[in-house]
């Protein structure tokens, strides 16, 4: 279909900057646009975000469509859907990409259905098939026990992309591009949802996504108190605490600590998995870790198939010894310096 042209990514803003997943999408979108010999567009929606359009260009966009208005300050399904539909119908991109984030999971499928096309969610690989020029969309299925590659012959071809599986390109401040402001033209009756409260569950210390070391606990930790012991080890290693599904479902820790298919995808240097079985849904979240150390009393636990180093035993006996030993090691290094 000749009238559909270009690759468009939906940009997200975090703490006044382009979100990490957005620069990753710009890198991935750039490669796809180059493979098609077409342009890369970025759509930015929010309030007071125009200054970030230049950033999107520096990371690879040729054209940035900006919807910058106070009502768009925070994400709202109806508002964002209405403006992204407007831009997509106007620009007619051949490919549209979102991050697999709370926003992308919500907006991506809605926009696809509204435009009468399909979307593949949580893709870990995207490529252009040389002959057909179709987008090859690869995603984990059955809790990452298998992977599937899809194509879609209706346009635009759409996908959400998992965070941290694509690398961000180098920033190039000398790149030039075009910034296009788009009027939101909000239709009040179309807004049927209203966010009345937003709560950020601050974790103390280093953020899970940014940490080089993550100490992660599973069902076997047994209680909120147990997690305090993991916190101590994480603190000594200047890392963060994570959790698998059961501790979050049981309310021992906040769901913002969830590592896995339905939570955060992380790639620390060291991942210490304590009393967690290592279901594929969980491993999806940490398979990018460079080193995985597993402590589990069940020698058959799946985590031992995924880990680099493992100890079979009771975490309650092992962890305090481990924490002390690491503390000694760190204290010794401080003295040497």
């Amino acid at each position, binding site marked *: 279909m000749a009238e559909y042209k270009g690759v468009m990514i939906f940009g997200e803003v975090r703490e006044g900057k382009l979100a990490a997943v957005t620069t990753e999408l710009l890198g991935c979108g750039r490669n796809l646009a180059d493979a098609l010999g077409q342009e890369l567009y970025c759509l930015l929606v929010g309030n007071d975000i125009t200054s970030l359009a230049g950033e999107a260009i520096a990371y690879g966009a040729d054209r940035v469509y900006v919807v910058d208005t106070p009502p768009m300050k925070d994400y709202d399904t109806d508002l964002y859907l209405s403006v992204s539909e407007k831009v997509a119908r106007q620009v007619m991109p051949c490919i549209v990409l979102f991050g697999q984030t709370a926003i992308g999971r919500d907006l991506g*499928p809605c926009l696809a259905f509204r435009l009468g096309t399909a979307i593949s969610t949580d893709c870990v690989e995207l490529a252009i098939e040389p002959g057909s020029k179709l987008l090859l969309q690869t995603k984990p299925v059955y809790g990452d026990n298998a992977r599937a590659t899809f194509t879609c012959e209706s346009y635009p071809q759409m996908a959400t992309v998992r965070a941290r599986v694509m690398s961000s390109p180098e920033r190039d401040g000398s790149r030039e591009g075009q910034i296009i402001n788009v009027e939101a033209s909000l239709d009040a009756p179309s807004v*049927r949802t209203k966010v009345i409260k937003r709560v950020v569950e601050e974790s103390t210390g280093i953020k899970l996504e940014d940490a080089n070391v993550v100490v992660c606990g599973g069902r076997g930790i047994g209680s909120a108190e147990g997690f305090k012991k993991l916190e101590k080890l994480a603190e000594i290693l200047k890392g963060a605490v994570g959790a698998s599904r059961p501790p979050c479902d049981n309310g021992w820790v906040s769901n913002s600590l969830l590592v896995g298919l339905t939570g955060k995808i992380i790639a620390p240097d060291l991942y210490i998995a304590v009393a967690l079985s290592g279901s594929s849904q969980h491993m999806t979240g940490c398979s990018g870790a460079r080193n995985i150390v597993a402590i589990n009393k069940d020698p058959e636990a799946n985590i031992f198939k995924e880990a680099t180093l493992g100890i079979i035993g009771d975490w309650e006996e092992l962890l305090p010894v481990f924490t002390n030993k*690491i503390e000694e090691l760190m204290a010794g290094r401080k003295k040497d310096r």
Partner: protein
Amino acid sequence: MTAVRMIVCCKQVPDPEAPPESFRINPELNRIVLPPGVSAVIDPYAERALEAALRVKDDQGGTITVLSLGTNLLPDVVIKPLSMGADELILLDDEAFAGGDSWSTAYALSMAIKKVGDYDLIFCGRQASDWDAGQVGPGIAEMLGLPLVTIARKITVGNGKATVEKVTDDGYEVVEVSLPALVTVSNEVGEPRYPTIKGIMGARKKEPVIWKPDDIGAESSWIGAAGCRTKLLKLFQPVHEGKCEIIEGDSPGEAIANLVAKLKEARIV
């Protein structure tokens, strides 16, 4: 108190708790091969969606209609929602529904929902544990023109609207939505309840309603494999290298000392 009319979409899936090593695929047919002993269950996310609906019913009273689409739906599996407390079960069970994708599934379910008629709230799981797409809920909302809230952990109903706690990447939001609406439900809603003996006995007495494509007025080219907008090119299994070194020791202290020595040697710490 006003009785709330609810519809919950529940999918039958292979048990996601089955051990990962038991999964195989048939590359010729591009299909998952289920190993013997892996049973079918109601998708765990859909069970949470049902639990959320049951809590609204506990609180406000109301009715719950469960919809399930598939082929070869197993009676023992699909009646579980009835034994947990749902009122009615409608099965869209026909070969014509087979081989569908999120698009054709959302279409068939939205046609069935139109036939059900009066409803205040539709619940779906945040995704299903087989294809993990998370699109059928949003798709139904779009096709029926309903407002949508995804990834909910708590839903309360009152004054013609629902108040939903929605899980976000760094916390949660409280969203008010006018009814009728569609909500997708996440694990954080909490454990689904167990069926009671009374519930199980009652469920056995209820006859599920079975609807064929014609019953819901579905366009045959829009359902099942015919209605797919996506094409599955290839299904494959990622290779996991089992290379874990198990650290031994005569006591916890010794094992940990060996572990820390290894970590130091490899410059990991």
